[in-house]
């Protein structure tokens, strides 16, 4: 029987693994150096890429939702002047990021100056699980500078659905 109860103690010991700092092996410094270099390289290449692709002022479209919204956004389909320019399906984690105040850049591109028509179709479901789809359109004029558009998906508390609010900025 002693063997049986030593087994019981072993089981108990296995249950408790206290929090401790990871051991610092010889690789640590190499890893840190590599991470730093990778971050620097990625930053520089991102900037160079932007400089190359968006030499002229670009248009960016952002999406945000009401903080803590009970309504689940499933996906967004975006067209500009009838041409499909963006689609995003939201995972639970991504939607949670939006509900905590994150803002997603859904589109960045070079649009010609002048008038444009944006159309966004979103699908979602309310806290009761009821599906719905809603489409909205918005007209804007692209001038000489950068154009930033924020599409806020806000709760329509009366209908337990979403509605859209747009904010628009120009940057010279």
């Amino acid at each position, binding site marked *: 029987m002693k063997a049986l109860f030593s087994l019981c103690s072993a089981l108990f010991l296995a249950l408790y693994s206290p929090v401790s700092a*990871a051991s610092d092996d010889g690789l640590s410094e190499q890893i840190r150096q590599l991470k730093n270099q990778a971050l620097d390289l990625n930053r520089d290449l*991102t900037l*160079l890429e932007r400089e*190359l*692709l968006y*030499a002229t*002022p670009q248009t960016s479209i952002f999406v945000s939702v009401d903080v803590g919204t009970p309504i689940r956004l499933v996906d967004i389909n975006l067209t500009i002047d009838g041409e499909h320019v963006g689609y995003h399906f939201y995972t639970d984690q991504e939607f949670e990021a*939006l509900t905590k105040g994150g803002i*997603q850049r859904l589109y960045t591109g070079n649009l010609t100056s002048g008038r444009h028509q944006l159309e966004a179709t979103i699908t979602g479901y309310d806290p009761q699980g009821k599906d719905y789809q809603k489409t909205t359109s918005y007209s804007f004029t692209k001038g000489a500078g950068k154009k930033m558009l924020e599409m806020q998906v806000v709760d329509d508390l009366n209908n337990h659905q979403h509605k859209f609010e747009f904010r628009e900025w120009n940057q010279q």
Partner: protein
Amino acid sequence: MKRGQLKQWLLAACVAGTCATAQAAKVEFFDEIDTGPAELSLEQHRYLAFGEVMYDFYRHATFDAINLLLVNQQQSLFDDDTDYAELLLGDLYVTYGLPDSAETIFNRLLKKDILSHTRAQTWLHKAALHYREGNLTEAAMILDDKKVDGLEPEEEARRKLMLANILMAEGDFSGALDYLHGVPVETDEGRYATYNMGVALIRGGHEKDGLALLNSLLPLSASSGQALALRDRAALAAGLTQLRSGELAGAQSSLRQVRSDGPFSEDALLALGLTNYRAGAIKRALPLWLEAVNRNSSHPSVQEALMLAPRAYEELGGMPQALAGYKYAATQYREALKDIQRAIENIGQRGWADNLLPDDVNETGFLPANTDTLAQGGQLSYLYKLFSSNTFAQRFQNYRQIHQIKSMVEHWERSLPALMESYQIQQRGLGQHLPKVRQQIGIHQKQQEALMLASDKLGMNIPDYVDMSSPGDVANAGQAIMWKKVDSLSRQFGTLPGSNHANALRLRRVRGLLLWDIAHQSMEQREKQIQAATELEEESRILAERVAAVSLQIRDATLRTRDDLGQRLAQQQSRIDEIKRMSEDTLAALEQSMQADALALLRANQKKLADQLAEAHLAVARLQDTSVTSDTKQRTGS
């Protein structure tokens, strides 16, 4: 790792500061009133940029979040004034395993004249960094100081939790308990701290207090898999403690609360069997061990149960069942040994560590692996044990991050030639078209200016009243043609054939009716004219914007033809090569150390299984000998 409530504050700090202007601005539902575009202020730009960072942060894309912060720093969007961005970068550096960079940021922030709340936040981060690095004394000194006064309730709970853990590690259980009481037990952190504290108290000889803490976790509702597993673990720990102390009824009560399909169910079945066995109820112990025997034989508790079940049969006098049980145990041990051998061979193969990586780079979880493949290879249960080791988990985390870096570098390696080609195409295209476009824009600009002047003049010249002295001005197209004809006939009347009195009267009637008709719709026509003039002015304004946009593009394009972007792009190749080489070397070294850990674990299991197999064989031999002796005695009539 669950993100602390710090993020809520960071968001609030940024959003409150940066959105104030935006929120104050009247935002109307688009299809009701169009407020039109506004000039992007620095604060609004920061609001959008930081929102993007927060999106990456909350979806656990640490690398992307750091990159965005660094890019925005480089573009001077985030600078000395944006403490919230600095603090977040420090926090992200901690998560990403760059404690030195994080500490530099925290120290820099603490030297600045910042808000007291931000200062307390920064100290909390610094303490968390020390805690994570194992510098518990330094962490405790900060956490127990006035420096961290004024934290939000969630942050205060985090402070107390760290202090409780530090005191627990130092063996000061009463001090730890004091701090622990300030941590809400409903949170994940609170549950884990309560569990750790309960077990630490038991290990420190304070069994009663420890059990009370573990039992306090059992009635809590749990929805996530993680919380349910912790509740099972607490029930199992409480049950085992009571079993060891001989409190069999209490042990049984606790062990029954472990879910039968949870990750600790095999351990609970084994322990529940032991409880009955110790109480002398071998008949009750047997079905529990038999149930355990039917579970996955690579689980250590199942492997133990494989020997205990036949032993129970033996004690109950069921020798044939006991013999069959031992033989079955031997078979299972042999199978488990084969599994281990396969796992050892698999671990030795190239790319083993890559198979552990999740498909989604941002996925978080205990064992982020392709579990189906690993389960087929018989490695899964051993790997669970391996991942519960902090050292291995840390190595694997580094492996994942370096792998991500390698993927990123490979992406840039593929993209760089395309970027350089795009640059060449741009240069060629600009060289070809720019002179012509430059020449034409001047002409278009003059045309646009002339058009704007004309539309302005037209708009100003339209009176806001109706004057019938010039009916053609307020007639519509049809009326204007008619009026022109009638007016011409009136003027030329007398010179035309048929210019008699009757026709003169007829012409006068027609003229009068037409004038009446024009006058009747003149107001509507004037409004249309005013509207058309306004639209023309608007079109003219947009044309002016377009001309300005094209002029700006010409300026940018001219600068592009003279810049050194191509050269700067080409320079990145050597950096990419260097980082790729370094990441490959690091991955190889990490894989080697992970393989060594895994092999050591598997070999230890192999040895244990070999001992169990030998024990099973001995038991079979012993029972067969007993049977033969018994038969011989029966035959000889002794």
